[in-house]
């Protein structure tokens, strides 16, 4: 239908070819403590962040989410899972999950975003449909800004991935910020 017409019209109407600008990464260089800035940005976007030892992960989660019953853990770093999932799990069955525990691949200091892939969450819907979300991130896996982040994930197998920065939120009612819109009501990042 429209394909040929659209392409033809673009060819006729586009300006002469302009170059793709080269990105000078030096312009964005900053001598900052990645971890400190990352932590303060997680707080800024409404998340909790704790730096703990790997061995203390389960203890910490238990203390933070003592009421959680239906827990999905898709990381070997936690054994708190009470509901097991596989790639074939129907996401509709996750409707009543209280807590999901996933690993993050990469943290971005400038905005507190954490890269979570389909592999990390097993079921794509998991980090969104769960009531509360815990992301475990190794502190070596921090980078300065989004340009570096895309460098770091450029070699991945591309199916689905999401940068998550804080819990879901909205300010659509008179600009009042309310945490907990459609996705997770809270986000805790455990930096190990």
């Amino acid at each position, binding site marked *: 239908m429209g394909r040929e017409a*659209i392409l033809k019209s673009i060819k006729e109407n586009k300006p002469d070819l302009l170059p793709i600008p080269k990105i000078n990464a030096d312009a964005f260089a900053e001598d900052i403590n990645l971890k400190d800035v990352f932590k303060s940005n997680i707080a800024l976007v409404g998340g909790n962040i704790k730096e703990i030892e790997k061995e203390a992960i389960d203890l910490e989660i238990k203390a933070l989410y003592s009421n959680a019953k239906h827990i999905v853990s898709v990381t070997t770093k936690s054994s708190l899972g009470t509901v097991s999932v596989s790639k074939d799990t129907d996401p509709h069955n996750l409707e009543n999950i209280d807590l999901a525990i996933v690993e993050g691949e990469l943290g971005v200091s400038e905005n507190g975003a954490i890269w979570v892939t389909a592999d990390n969450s097993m079921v794509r819907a998991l980090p969104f449909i769960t009531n509360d979300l815990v992301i475990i991130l190794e502190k070596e896996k921090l980078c300065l800004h989004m340009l570096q982040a895309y460098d770091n994930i450029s070699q991945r197998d591309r199916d689905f991935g999401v940068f998550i920065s804080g819990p879901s939120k909205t300010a659509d009612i008179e600009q009042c910020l309310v945490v907990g819109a459609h996705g997770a009501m809270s986000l805790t990042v455990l930096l190990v």
Partner: protein
Amino acid sequence: MNHAEKAEVFNKDEAKVNWHDKALWYVREKRDTSAHKVQGWEYLRELGSGIKANVLSNLDEYLVQFESNAQKNGVIVHWASNAEEHNKIVGSILDKHQAKKVVKSKSMLTEECHLNPFLEKKGIEVIDTDLGERIVQLAEEPPSHIVLPAIHKTKEEVDVLFQEHLGTKPSQGNPEYLVSEARKHLRDKFLKADVAITGVNFAVADTGGFVVCTNEGNADMGVHLSKVHIACMGIEKIIPQEKHLGVFLRLLARSATGQPITTYSSHFNKPEEGKEMHIVIVDNGRTEQLSREDFRASLHCIRCGACMNTCPIYRRSGGHSYDYAIPGPIGSILSPGKDMKKHSSLPFASTLCGSCSNVCPVKINIHEQLYKWRQVIVKEQKQPIIKKSILKVAGVVLSKPNLYAIAGKSARFALKHAPKFMIYNKLNAWGKARDLPEIKNENFDEWFKKRNKDG
């Protein structure tokens, strides 16, 4: 009704206008704070602008590249020349899956194409899932802002709407309560949906993937719970390479709301096993805009809304006064290209202060384009006789210094001594709802000469 007349309606509720004005200015201030924290922010804007300029100059190649990469990933790609074709394509995908329930996340393109009424006529339930969009959908109104769709509604109005449609209890507009009720209501819709429709923030030519940004998580709740995902995008959403997302995602949320990034930036490349992913690529007037040398940079727009938040006219006239899917300064340079007659008053809804151009993350020369549209419109559209004759007289007076001096003197005399009804009447738009400033005895020229003489 033209923009000024519609703005007058919005201005009847003074308290609301004042709130609207301040709320949006607050968002603008948050944008400033956020932008100033970024090392190399201005360079980032230059990069954004430069990449978009390259995109427009090579758009056909990028679209073909994007299509072929997306197809390799198992995505089904469609092309639509206009709104009608777009709606038909979406309709036929829904028919194929016998879909009756659709959840939609924010997409200004489907708004532009009037997709909802088209699908509703086919007996399909379409639920807008962004909270602000759901609010205006329940109120049977269009969004009044592209990022804050319900910014024109008070919390009390939302309260009443929810009581009527969601059966909530009166809460005097308690935002926490209303959001939690909306969450329950929409969760049910997500769980029962057959198909999810989303917009596209950026489509990457060299990977065939695309990115959708939300704060609420509504796009992901819809997509991951339904069998079919339809993503609708204008042709200008393409960027050349994935690494360029590193530029645009740094710019987008900071410019929009002052957040360092949206809560969710979701990267879709392949459909899940057993599911379908469709992309509809839409022209609908964009290639025509591409042909207009003076106006093609308007296609750089990444829909952040910063130009609206900063605009003194938008803040005091409200999004509905523009009567176009994209309101505010950017809408005022996009809309005349679509329908000059209908939108001819919009390029005049500006003080040409240039604040929009200053905050635009991709450096669109919005105020210059507004000025250029005025020149086109004055030539092609019939202007009111009063405006024409006043401008003719002004042209003569301004070209003759002596006449100008006399005119100035008599005007200052008249404004000081003439009875009120002669000054504050229909001919004087500047005297509407406000007093003119105090009239001085001398003009600037006289004042300046005297000042120099006095040392």
